[in-house]
């Protein structure tokens, strides 16, 4: 198990952790920067100052309680649905690839793709806002057309690691994916 630091596409520090469970099973986890206390307090203070300003103008105390409500509910929604803490990839040769996203509130959302549907794992380029970034994606096989690709599943969308981190992940995945090409001849 090893952990190394890299940078994301927007410059934030991220960490990649690699674990090898067995010869055909590897886990790669990218940890995103955590929620900063100063940005949280800045947002809360801004909302409450605005609410207090409205209260002074309108003399209605409902504005203050509404602001508290909005802040609480907004924070819960942000932690449970938006802020991703860790994105991990579990590659089990001959079973499949599992993609997990862990949110800041503890929720985990998982998707498992069977090995029969996986065509390849590649690094692609994309235009994102005003930048060109690299991203890792899984190409899914088209059941009708052996050469075709039916779907592209992008990985690490929230942490957006840079090319050096992606290359490490790519090499680890390819080592396991290669085994399935050599395996049928040996059985």
């Amino acid at each position, binding site marked *: 198990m090893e952990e190394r630091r890299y940078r994301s596409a927007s410059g934030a520090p991220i960490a990649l952790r690699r674990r090898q469970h067995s010869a055909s099973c590897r886990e790669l986890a990218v940890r995103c920067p955590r929620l900063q206390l100063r940005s949280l307090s800045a947002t809360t203070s801004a909302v409450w100052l605005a609410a207090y300003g409205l209260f002074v103008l309108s003399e209605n105390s409902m504005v203050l309680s509404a602001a508290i409500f909005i802040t609480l509910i907004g924070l819960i929604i942000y932690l449970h649905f938006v802020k991703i803490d860790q994105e991990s990839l579990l590659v089990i040769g001959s079973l499949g690839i599992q993609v997990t996203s862990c949110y800041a509130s503890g929720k985990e959302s998982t998707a498992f793709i069977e090995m*029969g549907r996986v065509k390849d794992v590649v690094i692609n380029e994309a235009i994102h806002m005003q930048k060109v970034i690299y991203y890792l994606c899984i190409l899914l096989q088209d059941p009708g057309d052996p050469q075709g690709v039916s779907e592209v599943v992008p990985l690490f969308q929230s942490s957006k690691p840079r090319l050096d981190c992606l290359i490490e992940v790519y090499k680890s995945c390819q080592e396991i994916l290669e085994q399935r090409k050599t395996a049928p001849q040996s059985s």
Partner: protein
Amino acid sequence: MVLKVFFPSCCSSAESGILIGRWLSEQSSAVILAVVHFPFIPVQVKQYLSEVQRVTKVSVSVLGSWSNSKQEKEESLSEFLEDLGTIFSHEPWIQISKEGDSKFWSCSTLQKHSNNPKKEEIILVYYDQRKVMLSHLHPPLDTTTSSDPEAEDASKLSAIFDTVARSKILFMTDRYDDGPIKLTHWQSEGVEASIIVELMKQASVPACMLLAFLLSLISGVCRSRVLKFWPLSFLWSKLSTCEQLGHRLQHLQVISSNKKAQNQTQLVRKANIFVSLLIDVALGILLMSWIYRKNRIGHLADTLIPAADHVAEELQDLLQWLMGAPAGLKMNRALDQVLGRFFLYHIHLWISYIHLMSPFIEMILWYVGLSACLGLTVALCILSDIIALLTFHIYCFYVYGARLYCLKIYGLSSLWRLFRGKKWNVLRQRVDSCSYDLDQLFIGTLLFTILLFLLPTTALYYLVFTLLRLLVVVVQGLIHLLVDLIDSLPLYSIILRLCRSYRLAAGVKFRVLEQQDGKPLRLLMQINPLSYGSVVQTYRLPTYSCYPKDSWTSLCKKLFLGELIYPWKHKGEKQD
């Protein structure tokens, strides 16, 4: 290839025996269903397995041996277990052994007829047998299109789920039963059953028969010739309450049919309809008890007539405003007066009819309110129908205004063509040039100017009444949207997803357990439940209404030309 062994977690503490299950050779995986304990007679085991295979159509066979020794490894037992491999010939013969309370088991395979004796990697996947058996796998949308048996190979997981689900008969006998075969599987931990569910299953058969009988009576009455005469059938088709009642009747027929549900989808559909009906009726009865308390019906009836009067007065004020100089525009006096007086007389007639009905309103409302016990949707449909009836004069005004405006627009366009020396060729469906006589041109130009200068007046009346009509349509549309929502929401599936989330599976997720060098890779397979959005999308009940077919541009075009719009078309109605 890597050998995958799917081991049920309930058999972890079972005593030594042999493993039975299904071998999927194309994926090199063994799905273990149960453990058969000693002593057993091999011939009887084979007989039992062939019978199970015949009933379930799943190729169950003996896959290997399982040894759970509380003390150190016994050499004689391991030799005995290897010899079993020769009796039950299976390629490869899997041997799993557990020592004491150790979490890490040793797993090995015996290959007799292999060409290269390379030691292949083994992955041990634990699964919860009861949850996998009860779960229903929902494949991703792109694979649902191919439902041929060959596609089964493409999805390993559905093969595993299928195997466990179809082997229910295997789980009926237990090691505590007095039989030649003693099995351990998920039922060995204790059989779970609910008395209430069993009682309801027993009571449902006569209840369904009674309901079916009642429904056949009701539908016989509905289909009788008396109700099919022209004015009545026209009325039934226009009232949304009758449509909703017919829809619910259909639902009841589906529930009370005595044919058993063919597959899982039909069963869930029936359950959804049943729960939806139940909640609907419960909400309706709640609403009814709230309305009938404190004489609210009386208050409602008392405010209804003044409300209708108020609407009529507002309309009269509006017409007076239009007859004057509305928004500073100068109208054509004569036409204005004619149209205004015509509509005013209409309103006067309408008000007299309402006043004629006023003594009976309370009684009608009281009896109509009773029908809210049939469901909240029926109550909402009645509300929508009452709104439609009360604003019938607005609908009439809209139709008059639209027809007048439409005639004017067609006349104008045709005379404009005459003005330019062209004509509409009906045969060829195009505009052709034509030479008119002088008197034709003269009269045509005169009529054209008359129509053109009268256009603002007609257009204004049309605009005002169209806006009023659209307002009423929007209100009715919102009510119908709510009714649709209650009709189509699959409540049973949502409650199932909330309480027993393993029954609706979108897929699986694996968790890597503690590893030890030299031992096989240990994984835990858990069920990944379907998201709420997919649950609603998959199990939505079909409804009878459809949303407006016209896009915004065609709607605007129709409004501009003065064609009548029917925004909420129901399925089965002819398009105008």
